[in-house]
């Protein structure tokens, strides 16, 4: 019974914790500009993160060590450093975007300028990272994030033409008002938002924090194979509701407030309140995850003691990196850099860095010295390799597309 409860809780938190500021921005923007013409990318992205997250969870459960730790040992300090540099920079940028997202959610609820909230949010993120137990933190924000289900309810209550929506999603086309360059630029942004490097890093480190062993492989699989696709459905709901309400009006969203308008139009103030709770929960959950991920990645690379299982005094450098990352992230938002634009750049640059995160993971997951009989199957290697090719193509195309499409503006 206890195992069942643990599995159910894991799945629920995986659903509630799936969406972050990148998904909020990318799904709403693509829905408003391309309708459901990019829904296929979301499906590709969710499948990709499922494959690699399962791998990361399996590596951690079987070896008792997190991915970065093994990457450095297996591939050497040089490759490990490349892996670290790519994911640390993107994760730090994402942390800044998430802190901005939390502040923007609070601004929408109170009408008080978001910059006033940034230091408070930064302090609270640090306090939770410092004091609150891992399970409590993970479960609380994950469960609160379930408030975003209200967006799926809004889709259902909007009584859309399901047949037309299915046709639009399965026959993707570039709208007459958009260029092919912008279409592919946003396709890559959407892929980057679904497969952000910190998700795998946090998932594997979290497995070590929760002391997963081989007996938890089923929990790992159920979390990933049930929780992630259902979480992905929330991102899809954001895209659909934007396609239903914003696209026909020609609204190109550039603020979080515009992402909330479709839900309030359909469900009124209660819907709006729940959407804002959902925005707040998913951005604050992701802010905690990215802050810890900054600490995890550096500490695991340099071999420092790390994690929330240890008292702060036992892992001082890990805690210091977490604190410094939060300070840097909050500082970046306080420069008045638009958090939504910051998010757009974070997810696009994340797409450019994806192979550097996922290739080492694939190599480690095939090493019997760490995983014994739990190495990747042929099928999982085949799928992961196809994904790697896709990620390399996306990575190479990112910067040229960014320039040619004027960051999706043309």
């Amino acid at each position, binding site marked *: 019974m206890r195992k069942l409860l643990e599995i159910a809780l894991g799945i629920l938190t995986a659903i509630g914790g799936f969406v972050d500021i990148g998904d909020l921005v990318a799904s709403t923007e693509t829905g408003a500009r391309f309708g459901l013409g990019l829904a296929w990318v979301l499906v590709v992205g969710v499948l990709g993160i499922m494959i690699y997250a399962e791998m990361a969870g399996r590596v951690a459960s079987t070896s008792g060590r997190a991915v970065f730790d093994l990457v450095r040992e297996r591939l050497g300090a040089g*490759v490990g450093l490349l892996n670290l540099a790519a994911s640390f920079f993107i994760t730090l940028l994402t942390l800044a975007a998430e802190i901005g997202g939390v502040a923007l959610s609070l601004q929408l609820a109170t009408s008080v300028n978001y910059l006033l909230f940034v230091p408070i949010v930064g302090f609270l993120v640090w306090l939770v990272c410092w004091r609150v137990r891992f399970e409590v933190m993970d479960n609380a924000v994950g469960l609160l994030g379930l408030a975003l289900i209200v967006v799926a309810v809004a889709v259902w209550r909007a009584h859309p033409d399901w047949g037309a929506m299915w046709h639009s999603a399965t026959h993707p086309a570039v709208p007459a008002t958009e260029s092919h360059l912008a279409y592919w630029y946003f396709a890559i942004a959407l892929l980057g938002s679904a497969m952000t490097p910190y998700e795998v890093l946090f998932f594997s480190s979290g497995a070590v924090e929760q002391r997963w062993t081989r007996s938890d492989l089923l929990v790992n699989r159920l979390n990933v194979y049930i929780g992630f696709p259902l979480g992905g459905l929330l991102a899809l709901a954001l895209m659909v509701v934007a396609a239903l309400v914003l696209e026909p009006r020609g609204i190109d969203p550039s603020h979080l407030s515009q992402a909330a308008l479709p839900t309030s139009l359909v469900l009124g103030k209660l819907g709006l309140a729940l959407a804002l709770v959902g925005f707040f929960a998913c951005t604050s959950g992701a802010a905690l995850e990215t802050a810890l991920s900054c600490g995890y990645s550096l500490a695991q690379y340099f071999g420092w003691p790390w994690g929330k299982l240890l008292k702060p005094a036992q892992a001082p450098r890990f805690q210091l990196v977490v604190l410094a990352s939060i300070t840097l992230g909050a500082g970046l938002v306080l420069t008045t850099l638009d958090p939504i634009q910051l998010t757009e750049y974070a997810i696009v640059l994340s797409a450019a860095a994806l192979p550097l995160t996922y290739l080492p993971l694939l190599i480690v997951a095939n090493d019997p010295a760490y995983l014994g009989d739990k190495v990747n199957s042929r099928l999982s290697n085949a799928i992961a390799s196809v994904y790697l090719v896709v990620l390399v193509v996306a990575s190479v195309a990112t910067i040229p597309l960014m320039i040619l499409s004027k960051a999706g503006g043309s």
Partner: protein
Amino acid sequence: MSGAPLHPRARQGRLAVGLGLVVLVAAAGCTGLVRSDPVYVSKAATTAAAAASAVETAQLAVQEAAAGKLSGPSLAQTLAEAASDAGAIQATFDAIQPPDRRAEVLRGQLDRLLTPAASVLADLRISARWGDTAALPRLAAPLPKLAEELQRFQEAHQ
């Protein structure tokens, strides 16, 4: 990464590539110089579309507020952002030097739509901040026509 010390030329080369990338990324979001009429026309069409988006956002927010579906803080925030966007969109477009007389005429045409749009959105923002939601539908009355004209302008010059 071999860990071996890099030759100074190789180091300079890497630095140049890095700096080049940073400049390219920064340039991706910038407004470029306009030297030809077609580019100016295209920028005018993009500007009209962006302004129409701000106008439609405000219209939707007012419609929701009138139906009691949007809370005061969210309404005030949405309208403030729409007004700020409209002002910024106009300022950015007006900062571009028209390359010839024809472009100057086009600029005048678009400004005749952008100025009232920015003005109406500013009025809506002020009213919402004062909590005078009853006045919003009256103030927003010109928005549907403005949105339509901006849309038409964009389609004509796309």
